[in-house]
């Protein structure tokens, strides 16, 4: 650099730094490495701040709710009493519907089965520094038994999967991320197809042929084909169906509120979770449990769900 004209030094420095980083990118792609050491340092440095921030925000929010935001309490109380009355009426109506009762029974049964799966509750302490990706950080990591490729859920449905696990922190790729995907099927018709993120709040169901009947409002559940999530966990509800070139364009609204995640459940196993198969309740077709109907599988979806890395499509 000494012999270079001073006005060109910065330009040469720019070229050098950019070339070094291109080389760094190339090495990562070639060796399928993600620069783990640098990431560990950065995450180790940042996660205590995130943890403290999360604690601080929680304290401030609690203080605000319990000491300063009481002016609305009386009004909220009246509103809750009204809502409570309306809910009681609704419960009475629900109790009269045997189909709904069957569905609840199936859900209860499913929850009991799920209780056998080892799991840990973790708190969300951060998200990706990349505005274009949907990644969150949890406050538990390898010390709590969390490993790469473990499934992450909430009681409402699938959240994503662990893509990196550090000592006290883990990184989760959320279902709405462009690189994310999960083996799924439509609950009533048992048509199987991967569901993937688009970077938007809605998900995309990819390989359902134009000839298949798909109704808006149908529930989408996990198929278990990705060997990460147990079968029949809620993924979302179909909100839009359009005919496409070869496959239908199906948009799915996630069951879990992926934009406001505060606590999640990590399934502490990377082995496929096999659920006990039981006969289906007859009343509600939309919640047929596993094993009750022969699965109708879109040809492309089977291979996509079994051969690909379901939650991670990075090269």
């Amino acid at each position, binding site marked *: 650099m000494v012999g270079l004209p001073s006005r060109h*030094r*910065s*330009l040469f*420095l*720019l070229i050098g*730094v*950019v070339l070094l*980083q*291109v080389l*760094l*990118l*190339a090495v*990562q*792609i070639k060796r399928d490495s*993600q*620069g783990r050491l*640098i*990431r560990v*340092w*950065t*995450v180790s440095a*940042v996660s205590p*701040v*995130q943890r403290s*921030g*999360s604690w601080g*925000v929680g304290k401030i929010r609690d203080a605000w709710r319990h000491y300063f935001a009481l002016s609305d309490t009386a009004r909220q109380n009246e509103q809750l009493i009204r809502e409570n009355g309306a809910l009681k009426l609704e419960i009475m109506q629900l109790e009269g519907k045997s189909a709904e009762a069957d569905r609840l029974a199936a859900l209860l049964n499913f929850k009991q089965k799920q209780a056998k799966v080892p799991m840990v509750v973790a708190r*969300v*302490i*951060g*998200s*990706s*520094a*990349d*505005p*274009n*990706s949907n*990644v*969150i*950080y949890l406050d538990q990591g390898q010390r709590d038994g969390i490993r790469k490729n473990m499934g992450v859920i909430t009681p409402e449905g699938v959240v994503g999967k662990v*893509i*990196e696990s550090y000592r006290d922190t883990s*990184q989760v*790729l959320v279902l709405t*991320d462009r*690189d994310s995907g999960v083996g799924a099927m439509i609950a009533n018709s048992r048509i199987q197809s991967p569901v993937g993120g688009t*970077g*938007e709040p809605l998900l995309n169901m990819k390989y359902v042929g134009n000839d298949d009947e798909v109704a808006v409002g149908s529930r989408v559940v996990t198929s278990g084909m990705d060997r990460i999530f147990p079968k029949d966990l809620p993924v979302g509800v179909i909100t839009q169906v359009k005919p496409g070139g070869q496959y239908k364009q199906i948009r799915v609204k996630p069951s879990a509120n992926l*934009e*406001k*995640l*505060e606590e999640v459940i990590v399934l502490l196993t990377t082995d496929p979770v096999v659920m006990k198969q039981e006969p289906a309740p007859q009343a509600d077709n939309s919640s047929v449990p596993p094993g009750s109907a022969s699965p109708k599988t879109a040809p492309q979806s089977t291979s996509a769900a079994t051969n690909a890395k379901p939650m991670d499509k*990075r*090269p």
Partner: protein
Amino acid sequence: MNETYDLRFGESHIEVHKFHAGTILLSLLIAVVLQSFLPVYISKAGILDLPLLITIYFGLSRRNPSTGLLLGTVIGLLQDSLSKTPLGLFGISKTIIGYLASSIGARLDTEHPAARFALTAAFFVLHQGIVILIQKLLLAQPQPWFTMRLLIACLVNATLGVFLYYFLDRLRKT
């Protein structure tokens, strides 16, 4: 050492600003931490790119291309480390933005809010273009060039930039 000094291009005089010790490092760390922390509580905050705004501001203020590009490199690599992206994606893009911001800052007066808004918007679009180009060419990840979200993010970041820069101006040595 002088706290401020003038660059002279023809007849124009452009002041180079200095900051209190640790200001740049602290701003950099706060930006990266907030970038990964805010969206947990405010989901819409994911649209912000605070590390980019910091890169642009200090590039425009310091007006030294070498410093600007190295600052961009550090911020970009930190952002990469806290993302799922391969190391270098944001590193390269922010290196280039840091260099360009410093070079432009050395030639233009960028103190007026309108100029800052326009420059931030332009740098945001350029930054996004570089990121997408790298993803397409080097990582074989097809990405759309334009989305409505990108346009909204551009306007939001440029607007926030004007207010953030005004605040950061207070941290300059006088």
